Every structure is written in C-alpha cells, then in structure tokens.
C-alpha cells in the first residue's frame, strides 16, 4: 500500500513536471500566430522598449563576387562605426545554399539579417520564416512581396535606363543589341533589362511591362536580340557572346548586366578581333571594365554602390535594434543611386573606390578574426 502510494506520488509529480514544461514552452509563443509583417512590427516595437546595444547583424549576399567584397567592406565599416557585430555570408551554390545560410543564422538567434534575394518570387517561404524570427531587410535585389522592413539598394529599372543612355550614345544611328546576364530570374536582372529596353525604345516608364527574354524585339532603329544567361559559368558567359556574334553579323553593341558579363564580352571581342567594331556597355566596376573605358573599348558602365549596400543596411538594422524606428525610411526604400562611369570620370571614380577599399582594411581584418573586437573598440556610437 505504502509502495503504491509512493509510486502514485512519483507518477503524478512526473506528469505535473511534463505538463508544466509544455505550458512553459507554449507561454513563450504568442497566443495568436502573427503574420510575418506583424512580427516585424512587433520586433521594432520590442526593440524600441528594450534596445539591444551591440546587436549581432548578418549581411547575406546572393553569391560570391568582388562586388560583394566591396559590400563587405561597407558592412565592416558600419560595424566599426556603430559597434554592432557584423558577419558577412556569401552563398557559393545559389538559392539552396542561401536558404541554408539563412536557416543557420536563425538557429544562432541573430538579431537582424540583410539579404539579397536570389529569386524573390519563389523564396517567400524562407523569407517569411526569417521575418517571423528576426528583423529583415533586403539589399541589392529586393523581395517586394516579403515582409522585409526596407530595401536598401538602387532602383534597378533606373540603372537600366542609365545603361540605355550609354547604348544610345554608342550607337547614334541605331543597330542590334545583345544582352547578357548570369540569371534572368533575379529581380535586378529583370528590372535592369526592362529599363534598358524602355530607354533604348524611348518608351515611358512602366514598371509592369515585361519583354520576353527569348524573343528579339525591333522598334524604330534599334533591335534588342534575345537575352542569354550563363548561370555564372565564365566559360559559358564568354561562349554566349561569341555565339551571338556568330549568329548576328550586324551586332552593334553588347550589354553585360552583371559584373563579369562586360569582362567576358571584352575577352570574346578581343579573341575575335571585334574590339571597337562592337561596342560594350556594362554594369559594375570590374577592373577590366574600367580599363576598357580608359582605352575606349567600353562605352561606359553603370555602377552600383555596393559599399553603401553594406554600410547603410547594417547602419539601418543597428538603429532599429537600438530602438530607433524612425531610422526606417518612408515607403520602405533607401535609394542608393547608380552612377554612370565613362571616360570623363573613370579616374576619379577609381580613386574613390581605392580609398574606400583601403580605408578600413586593417581594422576589418582584425574584425574578421575576433568577431569585430576592433569594431567595438573603434567607438560605440550606441546611445
């Protein structure tokens, strides 16, 4: 009898403990499930009440490129200036790899993430998952349908129009244009291409106009041929340009939408002896592209400001973590406008770039090794 009583007591204790545990864990979750957007608003409110000094922020790119190394410098400089701890992550194998990185960051309970969405339309589930668990902004490539608080970047449509102006300057009498890009499914690729075509064809701004990349289109004196993608394979990127030259003997101008595209276009033109005969318009500031502008083989390039993608996105997230929701832009867009580089301003542009890269090199190296101790020592601007 005694023994039975003891057993019963023990069992009921165990049951109580188990139930207590379950109720405890369920207490942590909100009673009603909030949408990702509501969760973001809730995070902002929570931080306004309980600011986090020295938050842990992550900057996630869409791949590996020198472009992102400049963005990394900006993000690291923001860490130095604000005292936040910033880590930079570059997915090597595309969208699946980016998802893995985001999930791993969530597992570390990171305070905020800035990400360049590789495929915004199809990444909503993972972006929502991020948004329900931490602060989220996008940079470089936006995901407008997601719950992100803000987008830090340029309007790629406007950048496309800027490139279109370069094409018109290169071919004043019109002609055939071929566009090359790594991936067409990225929002920035689509918008750049659309802006470029609208400018070439002298059309009004229409965000919803979409031209089929597999079709050629002729309006007036310009023909834009079908757009070829290379999935970031450089040999393929070069082969694409060569094949378009073969297929279209009257090709007048090639436009490379991603950093390496104008570089590989130059390689293809050089080995085919077509330099000067076919004009090149590019995006971004690869050294070969800048050299091409200097020697006249490239008409010009439209550069983004990756340094400020890194800097401004980390600065914004740090401010929100410090309880300053006013830092969030009206309309959710921090514009980092594109700059057109031609023979006239290439030297000044390159000097500025070198200065930015060298500026925080020593401190950033130290930061990489020690989780940004250097950044923390450099001055905690958190107030």
């Amino acid at each position: 009898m005694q023994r039975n009583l003891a057993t019963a007591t023990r069992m009921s204790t165990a049951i109580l403990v188990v139930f207590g545990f379950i109720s405890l864990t369920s207490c942590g979750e909100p009673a009603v499930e909030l949408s990702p957007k509501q969760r973001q608003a809730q995070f902002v409110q929570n931080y306004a009440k309980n600011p986090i000094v020295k938050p842990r922020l992550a900057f996630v790119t869409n791949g590996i490129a020198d472009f992102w190394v400049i963005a990394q410098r900006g993000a690291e400089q923001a860490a130095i200036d604000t005292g936040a701890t910033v880590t930079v992550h570059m997915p090597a194998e595309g969208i699946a790899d980016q998802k893995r990185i985001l999930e791993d960051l969530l597992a570390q309970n990171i305070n905020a993430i800035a990400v360049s969405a590789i495929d915004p339309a199809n990444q909503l589930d993972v972006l929502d998952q991020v948004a329900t668990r931490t602060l989220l902004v996008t940079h470089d490539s936006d995901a407008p349908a997601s719950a992100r608080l803000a987008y830090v970047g340029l309007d790629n449509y406007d950048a496309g129009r800027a490139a279109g102006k370069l094409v018109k300057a290169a071919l004043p009498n019109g002609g055939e244009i071929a566009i090359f890009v790594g991936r067409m499914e990225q929002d920035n690729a689509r918008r750049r291409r659309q802006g470029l075509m609208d400018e070439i064809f002298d059309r009004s701004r229409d965000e919803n106009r979409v031209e089929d990349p597999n079709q050629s289109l002729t309006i007036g004196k310009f023909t834009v041929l079908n757009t070829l993608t290379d999935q970031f394979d450089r040999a393929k990127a070069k082969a694409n340009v060569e094949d378009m030259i073969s297929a279209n003997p009257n090709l007048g101008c090639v436009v490379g939408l991603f950093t390496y595209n104008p570089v590989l276009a130059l390689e293809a033109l050089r080995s085919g002896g077509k330099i000067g005969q076919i004009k090149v318009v590019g995006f971004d500031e690869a050294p070969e592209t800048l050299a091409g502008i200097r020697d006249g083989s490239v008409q010009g390039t439209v550069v983004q400001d990756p340094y400020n993608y890194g800097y401004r996105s980390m600065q914004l997230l740090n401010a929100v973590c410090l309880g300053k929701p006013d830092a969030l832009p009206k309309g959710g867009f921090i514009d980092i406008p594109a700059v057109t580089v031609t023979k006239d301003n290439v030297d000044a542009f390159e000097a500025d770039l070198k200065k930015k890269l060298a500026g925080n090199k020593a401190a950033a190296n130290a930061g990489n090794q020690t989780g940004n101790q250097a950044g923390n020592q450099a001055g905690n601007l958190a107030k």
Partner: protein
Amino acid sequence: MKKSIGIAIILLAIVIATAILSPNFLSAYNLENLLRRTALFGILSIGVGFVILTAGIDLSIGGVVCLAGILTPYLLTQMGWTPTETIGAILLMSLAIGILQGSLVAYGRIQPFLVTLCGLLIFRGVARGITMDQTQGFQGKFAGIRWIGNGRIPLPGVDGFAIPAPVLSLVIIAVLAMVFLNRTVWGRWMKAVGRSPNAARYSGVPVARLQILAYTICSLLAGFGGLLFVCDVGSAQPSDFGNFYELYAIAAAVLGGYRLSGGEGSVVGVVIGAAVMQVLRNAIVLVPWLPDTAEFAVIGLVILIGVLSDELLRRFAASRARTQAKGV
C-alpha cells in the same frame, strides 16, 4: 576507328542540321570557337577516358580544373612566379593529385566514386581558401602564356580562319594517348584491367600500378585543361570555375564509345563526343527558335540517343556474328 563511326554520324547530322537552320554556323569565326571549345573539353575527356577504361570514375575533374584555373593567375599575379614556374607547379600538383587519388583507389581499396567525389569537394574548397573567394585574373598581362589557351595559329594562304592554339595541345595529347593505348603493352594491359581485373591480376598484369597511372593521366590532363581554360577565359572565380566539367567530360567519353563498365573506348571517339556536346550548345544559341532554356534537356536527350544507338548497333553486330558462326 570503326567504333567511332556511330558518333561521327551523329556529329555530322547535328552539324548539317545546324548549318541548314543557321546561316552563320559555318562562318570561320564560329568554327574557330567550336574548335577551341572542343579542344578544351576534349582534353578533359581524353583524361577521364583512361580512368573509365579501367572501370573507374573520376568526379574530381571539375575541382582540379578549378584549382589549376585559379592557381595559374594567382601564382603569376599575386606570387610573382614566372610562367615556366607556374606551369611546372600546376602540372606537378595535378600529377600529385592523380597519384594520391589513384593510390587510394588501388591500394586503399576505396571506391573510386567516393575518392574522387571527396577530391571534387576538397580541391574546390582549397581553391576558395587560398584565394579567399576572390576572382583571379591575368589583369591584362601575360599575353605570352595565355596564347596556349586563346592563341590562333594562322594558316598560310588562308585569310580569316586560324587554328585555335588549344587544338595543337589536343592533337598532341590525342596522338600520345592513341599510341599508348594501341601500340604499347601498357595500353593493352589497361584495357585488360577494365575487362576483368582478376583475370588481369592472375596473368601477371600490375593492376594497381595501371590504375594509379590512369588516375594520374586523368588529373594531369584535368590540371592542364584548367590551365588552358583560364588562359582562354582570362579570369576564374573559385566558387564556380569548372563546375560540372567532370560530367561534360564523362558524357563526352561515354558518347565516344567508352563503357562505364570498363575495357572499351577509343580516343578519336572521345574527341568527337566532346565536339558533339560543344556543337549542341552552340546550336542552341545559333538556331533562333531553339529556346536557350532547353540546353540541358537537348544535351541529355542526344547523349541518351547516342548511347542507345551504340548499344543497339553492338547487339546487332553480335547477333550477326553469331548467325555467321552457325552458318559455317
């Protein structure tokens, strides 16, 4: 030679079809591009052919191409090595990789699939680590060494068409490979190893050493191929340079008549197989109504058709040989 007739017919059919569908296909410029690409991929494919001959597989080719491809500009521009030192180092490194992988297969008795899959990951990882994921390029210099990848050899009396320099490398390598396989006892032994390693072993064939030799040749050619690729392209990004090239090489070898079960294959067939792959990719861009997105589907289908027709031809030949034997 006879074995390569099937694939040669397929190549001819694709060439004729593309030439009809695209007026620019036969332009000198396009043919030069195709020859250069065929040479680059053909060198990788000849290499993997040796491994497949011994019934092995080498998945590490893409990794070796990447490592050699990024190390070439890295050693030249960042470390200040001379072109001779750089080429020597790349070839030595590839040699060492081959000996290591071959030894793991031959003496360690580890599945070749596993050894070389790990190699694929390791070599790309090392390349990314050495360069901290930074793109490596020639920075507009070293036109001399780059000639082996993007140079053109003018033909006397012919204007507008030149032989791409990598074709020279391909021809030398192909001739050496054919002499080795068909005119030396080592070549015959290598085929014997693929057909039946046990029978070969009992006949006194040094099976392990031949296996190591096969992997060494393969890695050496992959490293040399990576060198040529980067000389052609001008720069290499460690995260994607040479991605999937092992599969292109294996596909070309299989198209060219190599059997994955070992023991059979011809060098000429492999080169034609590599040409088929490159002409197909070219055709997809040149033929206006072929959507570029269909690239992999088209390549996959053609490989399947090639392998199927090869198999049917073999069966037909075998059954005819049987009936002839009965008739006698």
